[in-house]
């Protein structure tokens, strides 16, 4: 944590873009269509993720983080959602593969850890059964081999007395153990991309860190790429290589974890970090961001954050600012962000283009 507080400027070098990113998302748009309204949940998200990297997506509720992630598995109801853009995972184009291939990808190449370990396990089957089910589906193992694998997986996620826990029903386990079982299900077929949707949010604070350390360790050992959705900045600092900040369905700031979290440039990221507990004087009230997130059914044309932004000029609400990227690959979408000495620099005096 200490090294993160002082970005070492000597380290700055031109970041070569990875030639062949494992995950490549380009201009992803997701909207939900119903009779009453169209909800634009994701509005043009692009990012690349190399093999073995962890991308943390942070943002407040309703900023489209979970929707973006569920699109990578195509979990949205087909009839009511429209997905546009490119999503490449390895050599698979998620937007185009047929339903059968998608079924094969789900759980084997890409798998997901859900937020609520209470409801994400079927209450009527034992833990072992649920792990073995996935193993049998993808690896065509027989029952005994699948159960043996389930036992190994429970050991892998550090569940105490795994033999007995295999035969336990979800209600007999604590939240932390259940989340570990959930992770075991997700890891059962050695995925290359692990999607974690706030996996520690529903857990006790003391268990959160254990699960987080475990996930980080497993991710490194297995060389998985991971997309980790959270709204806990502390969690993001612990686990992320890259951080993407989402607001109203767009990535408004993206970069190396330390760049974004130590040296934020977008006013929203700045305000969000200012609202967390750091080195403030005791008793001083935390700064909050005024206003509420925008209504995704009727998004303004310009920057979605403009109505809440202290620095917004009259034109911020008219056109969407283009992404500004510096030499380190740090990106922010704000008219008031320029580059000086090859680094992003926020300057409230920059006048937005008319």
């Amino acid at each position: 944590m200490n090294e993160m507080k002082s970005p070492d400027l000597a380290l700055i070098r031109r970041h070569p873009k990875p030639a062949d990113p494992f995950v490549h998302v380009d201009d992803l748009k997701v909207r939900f269509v119903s009779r009453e309204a169209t909800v634009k949940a994701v509005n043009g998200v692009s990012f690349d993720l190399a093999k073995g990297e962890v991308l943390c997506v942070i943002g407040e509720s309703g900023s489209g983080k979970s929707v973006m992630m569920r699109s990578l598995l195509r979990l949205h109801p087909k009839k009511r959602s429209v997905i546009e853009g490119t999503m490449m995972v390895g050599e698979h184009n998620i937007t185009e593969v047929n339903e059968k291939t998608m079924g094969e990808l789900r759980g084997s190449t890409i798998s997901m850890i859900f937020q609520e370990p209470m409801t994400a396990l079927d209450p009527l089957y034992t833990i072992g059964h649920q792990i073995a089910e996935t193993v049998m589906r993808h690896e065509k193992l027989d029952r005994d081999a699948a159960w043996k694998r389930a036992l190994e997986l429970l050991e892998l996620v550090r569940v105490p007395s795994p033999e007995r826990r295999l035969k336990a029903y979800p209600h007999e386990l604590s939240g932390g153990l259940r989340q570990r079982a959930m992770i075991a299900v997700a890891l059962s077929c050695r995925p290359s991309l692990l999607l974690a949707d706030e996996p520690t949010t529903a857990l006790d604070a003391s268990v959160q860190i254990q699960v987080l350390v475990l996930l980080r360790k497993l991710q490194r050992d297995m060389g998985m790429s991971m997309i980790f959705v959270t709204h806990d900045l502390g969690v993001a600092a612990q686990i992320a290589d890259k951080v993407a900040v989402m607001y109203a369905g767009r990535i408004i700031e993206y970069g190396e974890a330390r760049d974004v979290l130590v040296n934020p440039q977008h006013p929203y990221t700045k305000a969000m970090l200012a609202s967390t507990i750091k080195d403030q004087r005791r008793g001083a009230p935390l700064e909050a961001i005024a206003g509420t997130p925008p209504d995704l059914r009727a998004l303004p044309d310009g920057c979605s954050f403009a109505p809440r932004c202290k620095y917004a000029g009259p034109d911020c609400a008219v056109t969407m600012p283009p992404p500004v990227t510096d030499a380190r690959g740090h990106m922010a979408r704000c008219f008031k962000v320029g580059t000086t000495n090859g680094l992003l620099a926020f300057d409230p005096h920059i006048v937005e283009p008319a």
Partner: protein
Amino acid sequence: MSDIPANLIPIPATQAAPSQRVRSYWGSVWNRLRYDYVTLFCLALIILIVLSAVFAPWLAPMDPDKSSMANRLRPIFHPKYFLGTDEQGRDLLSRMLYGGRVSLLMGIMPVVLATTIGGLFGVVAGYYGGKVNMVIMRTMDVFFAFPSVLLAVAISGSLGGGITNQMLTLTVVLIPPLCRVAETATSQVRTMDFVDAARASGASTASIISTHVLINILSPVLVYASTLVSVSIILASGLSFLGLGVSPPTADWGLMLSTLRQSIYVEPLVTAVPGVAILITSIAFNLVSDGLRQAMDVKA
């Protein structure tokens, strides 16, 4: 995969697993049922009735269809005829035993058929939602518009009598409510996270329905179906009573009640026998289904 150092995350000693053997779902249902004496008593009663119907040919003291003009309307507890005789002098006990076969068949078979068919439609409607749901459930609503007895009489009237037609009638009458219960339960299960989780781990729709949906809707559907057994017995008796069910001389509790009612002033106790049998059987089925509801922890 398993070469992770064992000391990565310390496991507190207090986290040792519980040592007692864990109960499965059905194990815990039985455990709750075990102390519910009313339900157990009714269950025993039902088993007794079913057994007596199944073994009627061996238990019946006389031929149920052999009439004897000399022994018409003998009173109850007559030394030769334990439950008396009917208006044609046939032994009532034998007829009750044989009649139970038809009545129980009419109580159980339509419910089994309707649970299968209605449950299938309900699961499909609940899982797919949208237009499929609309078509199936609105069709069911058409059947709901008629009172069940009226619907049964109408269908039975147009199909004609006989055991098969009566069974068909009752099945059609019982499908809509079962379909609705299955649909409600399915649409609740469908929104659960574990269904999403199963999909995220690559399960197909068919395997989600067969492994996750069916078992999770089993309790509410089973409990509701068990309440319908008594409804079905009463409806069947009603149809026979109206002459729309089995045709004489086949023994059937409803039909017996119908023919004996003319003798109500001559031998009221004998006349009451088939009615009492219908009453006891349907109450027993109702109480068992109440007990099941509690044991399976189904929210009504």
